[in-house]
């Protein structure tokens, strides 16, 4: 469904050039849920943004749903591939009603029956029709993230790219959103790419994952190996150790991986 080969993304020019992604390759099968984990600056979000067409300065090849992508995306691309962002406070237009937010992608793509689509997608994400004419500031963080998911789903895409979809939320709300995402994937046969720094979230959501560090994929593993703690690389082992709570001895043994 998604095939990324030797992806390289750079920012800046001349002496200030930063190679954020340095030759990343991975494949996501149809219907699969694939996790990208890593610490800040590892390039995981940059990979996602390049796939969805928000970063233009990349080399390598990106194919989504069998179609090779150029730097500029066709309008039709976004009917099959949509993204949900980290911060539900920043990703919804504060002066548009939920109705208008959800109607916009429908209008852009010239689809009919906007009314029925909005109604259906709001029910799908567990928000009733009573939310339709509210503004984002009238909703809680969890409800806003549901609207962001609804906006991504309103075009009935096949691929959903999720960039830290729950890291701005409280744990009890996080559980609700993760359950919702799981249910939607099953109901609509969606393919997910989930970026997260939280290994436990990836363990519940994904089938396979890639661990990134400093713009490269360190290791690819399936989620069973992650649950068993069967990491091959030292970097992954250290990441696993650090996400299992505070441990004085472990903290002293940490090192930097170049």
């Amino acid at each position: 469904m998604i095939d990324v080969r030797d992806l390289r993304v750079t920012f800046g020019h001349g002496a200030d050039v930063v190679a954020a992604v340095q030759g990343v390759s991975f494949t996501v099968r149809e219907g699969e849920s694939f996790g990208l984990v890593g610490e800040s600056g590892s390039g995981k979000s940059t990979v996602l943004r390049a796939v969805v067409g928000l970063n233009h300065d990349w080399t390598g090849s990106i194919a989504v749903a069998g179609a090779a992508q150029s730097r500029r995306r066709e309008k039709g691309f976004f009917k099959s591939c949509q993204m949900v962002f980290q911060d539900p406070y920043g990703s919804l237009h504060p002066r548009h009603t939920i109705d208008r937010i959800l109607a916009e992608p429908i209008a852009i793509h010239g689809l009919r029956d906007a009314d029925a689509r909005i109604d259906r997608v709001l029910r799908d994400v567990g928000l009733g029709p009573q939310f339709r004419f509210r503004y984002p500031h009238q909703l809680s963080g969890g409800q806003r993230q549901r609207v962001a998911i609804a906006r991504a789903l309103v075009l009935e895409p096949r691929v959903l790219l999720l960039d830290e979809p729950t890291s701005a939320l409280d744990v009890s709300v996080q559980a609700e959103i993760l359950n919702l995402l799981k249910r939607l994937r099953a109901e609509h046969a969606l393919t997910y790419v989930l970026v997260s720094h939280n290994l436990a979230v990836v363990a519940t959501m994904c089938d396979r994952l890639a661990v990134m560090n400093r713009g490269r994929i360190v290791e690819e593993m399936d989620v069973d190996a992650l649950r068993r703690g069967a990491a091959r690389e030292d970097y992954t082992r250290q990441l696993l150790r650090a996400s299992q709570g505070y441990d004085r001895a472990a903290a002293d043994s940490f090192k930097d991986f170049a």
Partner: protein
Amino acid sequence: MSETPLLEVENLRISFPTRTGVTQAVRGVSFTVGREKLGIVGESGSGKSMTGRAILRLVPPPGIVTADRLSFQGEDLLTLPEKRLRGIRGRRISMVMQDPKFSLNPVMTIGAQIAEAYRVHSSAGTAEAKRRALEMLEAVRIRNPERVYGLYPHEVSGGMGQRIMIAMMLIPNPDLLIADEPTSALDVTVQMQVLAIMDELCSSRGMGMIFVSHDLNLVASFCDRILIMYAGRVVETCRASELHAAKHPYTRGLLDSLPRLDDTRAELPVLARDPSWLEG
């Protein structure tokens, strides 16, 4: 825990008058802190940060703070004149905030800020303050203190910024450190290293610490004792090692709703909030 607590809080209440009536952020919280690491856990809006702020009288207006008792080593923090409070705030009780980006002065070098923190609270001269600031930077494991001393806040990473904040808060050698989500902006490995620094300083100086966080697992592994807050009240207090045996349904619900590494549950249990918790 020591015999005489550093800080005693009894029936702390914080309310904010709004157009639509009075909102009670904290509703009758009582606890004591000795020379230990006390964790305060709760979700957004539970009043955990306001509780930390109220101790240093940093609740922003129009917030109203009342308490039957709010005393630090025998001194009443509620009625102490502002001038005397300044002798405590920053010197004997200091506070580390969540985000170094907003807590450091962007137009002052890091060294100058740390040295200033020292000079405000002691009669030391410039040279002495610089020497202490460099020592402190080294204590929080900054590899090249001389170089970092002359940098501006935008030139350092988030993890280093947070260590600098900690250095600045610890340089007056406080008795109590209030840390409000000190590591939640950091990567897990850096978070562990920063916690190890604070842990070491707590045990070597006999400092007390209030660690405010939303991360149950982290608090359980780092602190000695935990208060769990919900809607402005403490619903449960337990030893950190016994968190997994917590009894209150809210605590249990929170623990259950956390995704785990070894998770094979098809669906995460969702917290069903019981209105009776508001009274508990």
